[in-house]
């Protein structure tokens, strides 16, 4: 059988780089195959997908050459960022954009849109709905619907769920499995829970774009577990492995821990609406509080209220000091943003790490020692002269945490710090946070990961419709019990 997608002896190098990313790389795909490409972040998986679809060099100019290159006639590409693949403000207009490109007659557009949207399970009261009002999962489904308009034989999926919560991730894979059944599907993804019963073949790349393995999923998982772990891939069981090596008894809270946050009848107000209302909550030093809840439940808003980004009412004591209007709690509380880029204030990784220490007015000698130590601990030494923006997503996240905790704040708030990270990086961050907590800090973080609750949280707060609906301590024995059942 003639392959539907094929590349032989591919050579590719990023502009400005002295080494090739792919050197004489060959691979082919048969019609109807479902293939998962795995590899560490930065190994060129996405680049490879773009090359197979012709986006490179068609839309992106990257030096490359191959002895043979077979690109599918009809293909569709789903990108990872839901906000960066639409050009129009409304659902119908975005769909129309694709249909116009295909020169669909105007009279047939509405019918075609209905057809495509129902294929991906989007039911809207009106086609003319703002895309910005949709959830991330819905946006990705819309992206899939647009792609289906192209009647693709081959689907390229470039981490389509990287920016989605667990619920959205499951939804998208259910949709993709349905619409991709009779197509060739080539997938790049590091959250592979839902992909494994879909993809039959796995291609494993190393950090330099070399082929490490190419085989059935059974073969790969049997023979290459170590490589998968080293590359930070979320293969089944990796969480359990990680959690099982946490020493028992680590989840204790110091008995006489000081109360660092005390709230009563505390309201966070945005516009004129009360977005979060906490009747009574006390947090001690040494606690690790995980906040869970659906999208839009008020989790981030709660953190924003604690940071005084929004107007608040009620009693808010921070280390016994009352926080009144106009007081900036940032002296005691550090905050790690969801997008680390926005919080970087310096021009190099080193300076970024040193920033909070400089603000505190420490001596230059002490600063240098502390910064060097922190950079080593967070594995950012080699990057210290780079601009923070030039780091990989994982490195950026580590830097944002490093720069936030270096000055030893008493309280650390984090908004989904492990979101979109690979396994290796997630575990590295959790290790650092746990160390930081053991030194006596309180951690409050928003997270969707149940495993973090299981492995690290000393308490869970569930928020729904702006109210705390669950406030439970998690005892050590419970965790032990849970890990036993795995």
């Amino acid at each position: 059988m003639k392959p539907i997608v094929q590349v032989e002896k591919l050579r590719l190098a990023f502009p400005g780089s002295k080494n090739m990313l792919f050197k004489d790389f060959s691979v082919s795909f048969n019609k109807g195959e479902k293939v998962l490409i795995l590899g560490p972040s930065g190994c060129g998986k996405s680049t490879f997908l773009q090359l197979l679809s012709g986006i490179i060099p068609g839309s992106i100019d990257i030096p490359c050459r191959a002895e043979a290159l077979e690109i599918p006639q009809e293909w569709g590409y789903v990108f990872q960022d839901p906000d960066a693949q639409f050009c129009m403000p409304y659902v119908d207009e975005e769909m129309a954009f694709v249909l116009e490109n295909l020169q669909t007659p105007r009279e047939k557009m509405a019918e075609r849109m209905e057809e495509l949207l129902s294929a991906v399970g989007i039911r809207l009261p009106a086609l003319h709905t703002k895309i910005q009002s949709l959830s991330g999962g819905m946006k990705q489904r819309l992206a899939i619907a647009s792609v289906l308009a192209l009647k693709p034989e081959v689907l390229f999926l470039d981490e389509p769920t990287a920016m989605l919560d667990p619920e959205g991730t499951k939804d998208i894979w259910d949709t993709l499995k349905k619409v991709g059944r009779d197509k060739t599907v080539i997938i790049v993804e590091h959250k592979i829970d839902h992909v494994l019963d879909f993809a039959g073949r796995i291609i494993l790349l190393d950090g330099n774009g070399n082929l490490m393995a190419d085989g059935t999923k059974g073969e790969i998982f049997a023979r290459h577990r170590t490589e998968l772990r080293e590359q930070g891939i979320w293969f089944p069981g990796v969480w359990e492995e990680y959690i099982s090596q946490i020493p028992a008894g680590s989840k204790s809270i110091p008995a006489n821990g000081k109360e660092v946050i005390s709230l009563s009848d505390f309201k966070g107000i945005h516009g004129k609406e009360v977005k979060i209302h906490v009747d009574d909550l006390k947090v001690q030093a040494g606690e690790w509080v995980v906040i869970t809840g659906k999208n839009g439940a008020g989790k981030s808003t709660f953190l924003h209220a604690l940071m005084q980004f929004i107007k608040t009412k009620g009693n808010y004591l921070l280390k016994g000091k009352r926080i009144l209007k106009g007081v900036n709690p940032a002296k005691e509380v550090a905050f790690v943003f969801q997008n680390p880029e926005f919080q970087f204030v310096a021009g190099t990784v080193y300076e970024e790490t040193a920033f909070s220490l400089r603000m505190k007015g420490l001596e230059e000698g002490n600063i240098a020692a502390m910064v060097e130590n922190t950079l080593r601990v967070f594995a950012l030494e080699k990057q210290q002269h780079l601009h923070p923006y030039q780091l990989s997503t994982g490195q950026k996240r580590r830097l944002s945490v490093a720069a936030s905790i270096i000055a030893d704040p008493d309280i650390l708030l984090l908004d989904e710090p492990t979101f979109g990270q690979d396994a290796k990086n997630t575990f590295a961050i959790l290790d650092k946070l746990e160390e930081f907590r053991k030194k006596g800090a309180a951690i409050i973080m928003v997270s969707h990961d149940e495993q973090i609750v299981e492995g690290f949280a000393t308490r869970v707060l569930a928020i729904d419709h702006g109210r705390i609906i669950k406030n439970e301590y998690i005892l050590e024995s419970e965790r032990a019990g849970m890990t036993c059942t795995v």
Partner: protein
Amino acid sequence: MYIEWSPKETWLHQINPSLKLLVIISLFTVMLLIDDLNYLFSFTIAVLLLFILFTGHPFKRILLFSIPFFVVFVSTSFTMILFGKGETTILKFGLIHITEESFYRGLLVGLRALATAALGLTFALTTKPVLLFYSLMQQMKLRPAYAYSFMAAMRMLPIMAEEFQTIRHARKVRGWEGKKGAGGFFRKISAYSIPLLSQSIRRAHRIAVAMEAKRFRMAGQRTYYYQTGFSWNDVLFIGYFLVVLAAGYYFSAEWPYFKQVNF
């Protein structure tokens, strides 16, 4: 600011957007040529009438939108009134020298600014940007690559505004404060613009790649989801201004509101 809380659609909404744009640009040019305060005054009243009666917004909101007009009027006319050339002195106080000529010319410049502001806002309040770009593609042969780039950029504005807010919060959290002086000013500007710009560039790049992945071609043929054309409202719009310009000219000669001043 095409207001999302759907105002009543009026005949101004029905006018072909390209034609509406061309007409208001021509009117702007005509205004540059009007040096007669009386004539300009009539014209301004005519523009304000459209703005107040036919943008489809409730009166309260119209009042709110008009606040900047007066800022524009006052601030534009004052410089000329206080520091303009002239012979017939009304008041002299240090550097300030108000003359009859400078006073009238000040009013003229202020009215011109006010009428322009009202014209522009009337357009913005009655024109959906998406329809404007569809019309520019269909009637003015604007290349789709430009039209869709604009529409994509407009879609990103609220997201950018949100990001700007996040950056402000982040600076607060990190304890970052701008310093005084020119260096401080530059650092403050780059502290906000570098993250926003780099994010915008990357996002624009991704959107462009996604657009081409959806088979957008620079030179490709296409159909249009929104069909824009012409109607009697277009004739009415042009007719309205022709009558206003003619009548204003007549009134300024026959029944001037202000004393005629020769500059």
